[in-house]
């Protein structure tokens, strides 16, 4: 492989992973945009989505590539519903409290989710590898093939890469349309701007916040399906890593901004791939966190975010 081909290959891998990161980042950015909560449990919600997908594959005996549609119909509902439920049970009661209270609560939820994922992996099911330790990484069956669509070229662009694009790009367009054009989307933007004023205009603020959690969670569910099919391995602690990547992406793009989250996700995905290739895998995480800290310190509003002034 020539240097140029290596570059192209890493770019493809980076963009595919970047789109998955972007889907998770959208959930962070929507929730942060509306209630200024860093939803720490979001990464772990994504992890639970992966376990849900694997369970479905095992329980329904899915093998055909078209099974992706079944997974995409069920897993986002599971993740969206769970996210909505957590907001209803935990965060909603902390709306008036100090800002750190919901963050601490979200860290708690993250730990509960991680533990649930651990137990889930210990269920006696064939797909989890009977007799394997609960904590061990699980193999996700190859439903979408690894075949190179570019024929005999050295650069691999597989059916999986295509699948990531086919699922995520229309979804992002639909989300933009939803937020910009529908009544609920308009209400979301109003609540994000000024909760009190939105309430005075007759918007049910709690319902709109609940809807945001639902949609954000559903996007994480889509990310779970796509990621599980793309990387073919799931692990109960994967949520922390994915969550941090996605949060970095959201901050980088400007938290609260939907196009920012997508841009940030693609950037982090590509940066990770290039760091793996050209620096060293073991320094990749350090690099992502360094990006996170540098952006927060020097440009906390991100690339596309609006300047935010602390109001008195």
């Amino acid at each position, binding site marked *: 492989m020539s240097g140029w081909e290596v570059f192209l290959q890493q770019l493809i891998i980076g963009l595919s992973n970047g789109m998955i990161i972007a889907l998770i980042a959208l959930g962070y950015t929507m929730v942060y945009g509306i209630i200024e909560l860093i939803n720490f449990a979001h990464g772990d919600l994504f992890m639970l989505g992966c376990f849900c997908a694997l369970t479905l594959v095992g329980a329904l005996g899915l093998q055909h590539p078209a099974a992706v549609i079944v997974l995409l119909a069920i897993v986002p509902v599971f993740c969206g519903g769970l996210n909505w439920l957590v907001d209803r049970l935990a965060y909603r009661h902390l709306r008036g409290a100090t800002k750190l209270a919901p963050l601490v609560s979200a860290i708690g939820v993250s730990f509960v989710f991680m533990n649930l994922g651990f137990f889930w992996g210990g269920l006696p099911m064939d797909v989890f590898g009977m007799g394997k330790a609960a904590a061990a990484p699980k193999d996700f069956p190859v439903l979408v093939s690894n075949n190179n669509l570019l024929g005999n070229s050295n650069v691999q662009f597989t059916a999986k890469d295509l699948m990531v694009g086919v699922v995520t790009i229309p979804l992002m367009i639909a989300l933009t349309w939803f937020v910009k054009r529908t009544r609920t989307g308009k209400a979301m933007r109003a609540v994000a701007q000024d909760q009190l004023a939105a309430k005075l205009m007759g918007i049910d603020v709690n319902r709109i916040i609940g809807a945001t959690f639902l949609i954000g969670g559903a996007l994480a569910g889509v990310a779970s399906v796509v990621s599980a099919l793309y990387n073919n391995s799931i692990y109960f602690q994967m949520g922390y890593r994915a969550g941090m990547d996605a949060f970095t992406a959201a901050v980088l793009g400007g938290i609260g901004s939907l196009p920012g989250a997508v841009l940030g996700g693609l950037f982090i995905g590509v940066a990770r791939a290039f760091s793996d290739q050209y620096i060293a895998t073991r320094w990749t*995480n350090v690099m992502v966190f360094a990006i996170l800290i540098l952006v*927060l310190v020097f440009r906390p509003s991100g690339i596309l975010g609006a300047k935010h002034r602390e109001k008195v």
Partner: protein
Amino acid sequence: MKLKFHWLFLLAAALLPAVAPRLGELLRPILIMAILALGLNILTGFTGILNLGVAAFMAVGAYTFAILTCDIYPFQFGFWGATGVTILVGLTVGVLLGLPTIRLRGDYLAIVTLGFGEIIQDVLKNLDVITKGTQGINPLPSPAHPYYLFLAFLALVVLFNRNLERSRIGRAWISIREDELASSCVGINPTKMKLLAFALGAAQCSLAGALWASSLGSSGEPGNYDFQVSVIAVCIVIVGGMGSIAGVLLGSLVIMGFNSIVLETFTNFLKAHQLISTDNVFTAPGNWKYMLFGLALILMMRFRPEGLLPSRSVKAELHHDHP
């Protein structure tokens, strides 16, 4: 609190090994985590800064102490010299991390500290020429009577924090926690005061790290100082009571006692009666640990955000009706 819980706690801890000699060994982690959590309490409890990376300060302390005492390095400072230097290193690291980040908003600052915690772990892992990677630096000389030594350190830290809380500095911290804008209007420099909190908090956490390393006889591996340790420290402060020294001591007793004594005893009991099956993950109590810690955080935030033994000012603050 007329009872002065913290002095009772220390007295009881001092007498305990005389009654039950075996418990001394088990209680050491409680003492060390109490010092770590008191360091976090300066930040989160007094000043209102959430730090999600105190394990990193602890790691810095443990590795500095190990490098200064282990005989494979040319330093050989001995226990007291190394502990002194470790505290100074912790202070410096706190200032270095605080300087560029202290002006950030609360939740962003929390994430920066979390990122710092992850970076420190990876750096320690990757710089294996110096840190021996995942093997850790060992052996370290162990001090005489570690239990009483650690208890004496804890007593000193409690005394120091209590006096600090009542000093001009402590009052400035508490006023920043309650209202940063108002406190800057009455002439407090929030940036300077927060930086001081960072420095002193980090110094205490690295002291905890040094004691941990000396107790272990090894720096431990970088993975020992992961995010979960930081969250356990946050749990201790929140369950005990933010800003309350007595509360933090009670919190370490409850959380660490649960972690290293109750869970362990319960596991041994179940094992003895053959109630733990290897193919059922639900039967081992240790597997429930993070679920319980997570639930503790969620439920405390929901029903008793001021903690079990609250400081009076925090309680008043949290139960004051918000608009």
